[in-house]
């Protein structure tokens, strides 16, 4: 048992930034825009580091797929306590079409290469909101999955996961190796402070190309258009119930 955990971290536009759609409607403006680690990925990293601090796992490896700047995101994970990083270089057109299917193929290949016992991912990214990478990774590896995890307990070679589902909580027990995806209430991620960032500079980030892992990045999806959500129309005030019914009939709703 290697006791190794892989944590996927994604570089996304910062949650507090006001998103602007590009003039040609092909995507959103990313140039010069503040980026940071996906909040759900922060929670994933925190969980992995906590497991290591409890001595339940031996090594935490942070993985990110993307261009050069993805290394900054890995550095943040290292500052939070990950031991080393793997930067899977994807840039240009490949990066534009990079999605859960490609990332899950990469994660699966790395899990085998690194002999990982556990993969922890954020439940979804705040830019594409796919909520698919964890599930696909588990399927590709034929591993059990504990998604939307709000509580994780290691119990020998099994994991007890409390999942956030519609209408409440579900508790399951799964075998290892396994894939977990982190939900909001799983933990409170620590801040990557300056001293920790400095210390993390000594930690190694390995460079890998998807081809080295035997992964084909071809996407089966094509983005046709990206546009702003429709402007919310101003509401109307009415005096009586008769007026309300009248207006509803006018609008063809009744």
């Amino acid at each position, binding site marked *: 048992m290697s006791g190794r955990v892989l944590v996927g971290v994604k570089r996304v536009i910062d949650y507090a930034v006001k998103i602007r759609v590009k003039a040609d409607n092909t995507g959103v403006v990313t140039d010069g825009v503040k980026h940071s680690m996906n909040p759900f990925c922060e929670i994933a990293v925190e969980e992995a580091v906590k497991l290591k601090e409890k001595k339940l796992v031996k090594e935490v490896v942070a993985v990110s797929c993307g261009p050069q700047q993805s290394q900054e995101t890995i550095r943040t994970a290292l500052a939070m306590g990950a031991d080393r990083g793997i930067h899977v270089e994807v840039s240009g057109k490949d990066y534009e079409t990079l999605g859960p299917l490609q990332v899950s193929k990469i994660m699966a290949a790395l899990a085998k290469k690194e002999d990982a016992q556990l993969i922890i991912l954020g439940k979804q990214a705040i830019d594409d909101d796919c909520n698919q990478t964890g599930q696909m990774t588990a399927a590709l590896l034929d591993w059990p999955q504990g998604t939307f995890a709000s509580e994780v307990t290691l119990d020998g070679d099994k994991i007890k996961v409390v999942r956030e589902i519609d209408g409440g909580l579900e508790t399951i027990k799964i075998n290892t190796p396994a894939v977990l995806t982190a939900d909001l209430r799983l933990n409170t991620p620590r801040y990557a402070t300056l*001293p920790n960032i400095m210390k993390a500079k000594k930690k190694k980030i390995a460079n890998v190309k998807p081809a080295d892992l035997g992964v084909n990045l071809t996407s089966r999806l094509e983005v046709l258009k990206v546009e702003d959500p429709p402007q919310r129309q101003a509401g109307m005030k009415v005096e009586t119930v008769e007026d309300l019914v009248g207006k509803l009939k006018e609008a063809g709703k009744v």
Partner: protein
Amino acid sequence: MMANPLRPEVVRLYKNLLYLGREYPKGSDYFRARLRAAFTKNKSVQDPEQIKAMIARGEYVAQELEALYYLRKYRAMKKRYYEE
């Protein structure tokens, strides 16, 4: 004037707070100006006990900033992804 042995600690605190200030809601420039003012105001203090107390207060501010950033993010995520 002899350099105070606590100087490295004070400098370290300043750098940490400056780093934290980058995400300050009212802007990093606003934060930096106030940070400089606060440190400059006390630059002539020599008593080690007083300096240590001020360093502790600075560390408290750092913790408060981390908590602020976390709460903002948590509330934003909760609002966007969870129906209340």
